[in-house]
């Protein structure tokens, strides 16, 4: 542990990590070079268990066991903005007791990705090359280009990977392929990119099969569990972003009387619609993703509308509070809430594993005018209702 050189990221050093002088380092990458070896401020993270000496310096060894704290943090990543700053330092790490012939596996510097990988490597002696993906997972970072050809070439070079291993092969997760051009890496860095399986859990089988993944291991699935895990990050933002604004408008409209805004009127009149708002939010953000393959049509907007209209129908039938709406409010209910569910369900395209940009653009071109028209007509209906209530109409 004492061999690990400790440099606080961001501090000025006359000598950069990797034994290079500052002048030898790409200036725009000054910061990232300072972190190209996993540098730890004062205490190494709990998952670093020791160090491993190589010709290019000492490399931290990491544990393949996840602690309770790792697991709790992964739950927080799935549910909150905690994940926006959940990183490991980019650089090289050792698993087990790797040597000059051991495999090198590339990963992202999102701690959740790194944890899934190190857990899957239990019992192996390998190197992990963590790219600087700004704390984003492999697939998303590959889409953005941060898990990319240039970063991989740069990382191989500044870590002096060629001095650490004798082979010239690097296993890159298959989902990183959208950011990497294997032939360009080979030309520029001399390392052959071997695309591993989609899931880290298949890495051992992939290596044992002579760096070959089956078609099954190469295909992304989107199971019920996969979909459900993603729903908190659909529900939370919608609850924070849309619902408070919606609730405020509803309470203001129902509370507004000729004599001012009244709390009781706001609550009594608004409550059914606050409830319907919640129901449509969950129809779009939870029920639609959960039942995705079972709901007819391929369009997410249509799927969400169907879930929404069913939810509204069931609610008005079985929830006593919603059973006595007048005609105008009933029209508003059947117009607005299925559209709200549809809009929220459409956001799930961003979490799904199979939607393309051309398709999403096509969906939006068709649905955006409907959402806008629906919102305008809904507002007019509420105003007509108010004017009727005030006996103006």
């Amino acid at each position, binding site marked *: 542990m004492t061999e690990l050189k400790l440099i606080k990221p961001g501090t000025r050093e006359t000598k950069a990590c990797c034994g290079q002088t500052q002048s030898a380092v790409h200036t725009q990458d000054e910061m990232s070079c300072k972190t190209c070896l996993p540098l730890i401020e004062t205490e190494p993270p709990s998952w670093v268990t020791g160090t491993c000496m190589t010709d290019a310096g000492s490399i931290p060894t990491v544990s393949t066991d996840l602690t309770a704290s790792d697991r709790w943090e992964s739950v927080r990543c799935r549910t909150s903005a905690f994940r926006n700053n959940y990183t490991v330092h980019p650089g090289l790490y050792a698993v087990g007791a790797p040597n000059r012939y051991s495999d090198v596996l590339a990963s992202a510097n999102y701690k959740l990705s790194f944890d899934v990988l190190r857990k899957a490597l239990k019992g192996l002696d390998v190197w992990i090359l963590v790219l600087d993906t700004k704390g984003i997972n492999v697939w998303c970072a590959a889409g953005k280009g941060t898990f990319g050809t240039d970063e991989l070439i740069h990382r191989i070079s500044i870590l002096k990977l060629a001095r650490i291993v004798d082979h010239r092969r690097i296993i890159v997760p298959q989902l990183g392929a959208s950011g990497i*051009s294997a032939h360009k890496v080979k030309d520029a860095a001399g390392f052959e990119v071997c695309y591993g399986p989609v899931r880290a859990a298949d890495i051992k089988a992939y290596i044992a099969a002579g760096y070959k993944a089956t078609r099954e291991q190469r295909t992304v699935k989107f199971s019920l569990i996969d979909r459900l895990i993603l729903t908190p990050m659909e529900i939370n933002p919608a609850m924070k972003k849309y619902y408070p604004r919606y609730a405020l408008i509803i309470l203001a409209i129902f509370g507004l009387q000729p004599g001012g805004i009244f709390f009781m009127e706001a609550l009594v009149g608004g409550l059914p619609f606050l409830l319907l708002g919640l129901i449509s939010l969950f129809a779009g953000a939870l029920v639609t993703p959960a039942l995705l393959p079972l709901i007819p049509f391929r369009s997410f907007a249509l799927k969400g509308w169907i879930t929404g209209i069913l939810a509204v129908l069931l609610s008005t039938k079985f929830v006593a509070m919603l059973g006595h709406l007048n005609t105008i409010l009933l029209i508003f209910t059947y117009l607005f809430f299925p559209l709200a569910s549809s809009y929220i369900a459409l956001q799930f395209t961003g979490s799904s594993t199979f939607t393309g940009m051309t398709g999403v653009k096509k969906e939006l071109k068709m649905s955006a005018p409907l959402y806008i028209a629906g919102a305008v007509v809904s507002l007019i209906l509420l105003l007509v209702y108010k004017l009727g209530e005030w006996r103006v109409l």
Partner: protein
Amino acid sequence: MKYLPNTASLKIYPERCAGCGMCIEVCPHGVFALENKKAVILDRDRCMECGACVGNCAFGALKVDKGVGCAAAVINSMIRGGEPSCDCSGPNKTGDCC
């Protein structure tokens, strides 16, 4: 699961294909297969336009309008202009979408 039919912008130029099979290896949805030593599109509707095949084809035999299939990103690009991207919270932040 498949998305909208006949929308994916994926194109293949068989005359440039060397039959190396790289596209089959990187495609996360099994869109490609090799027939007579040339890559063919098995099922276009499975393509999510991630661009992995295009970036890894050393022979320029594939083309796709690569992009994020994310409504929030597309809506943001409609409002702010520019190409849809995952940077929901602006170009210098990590964003809270994916």
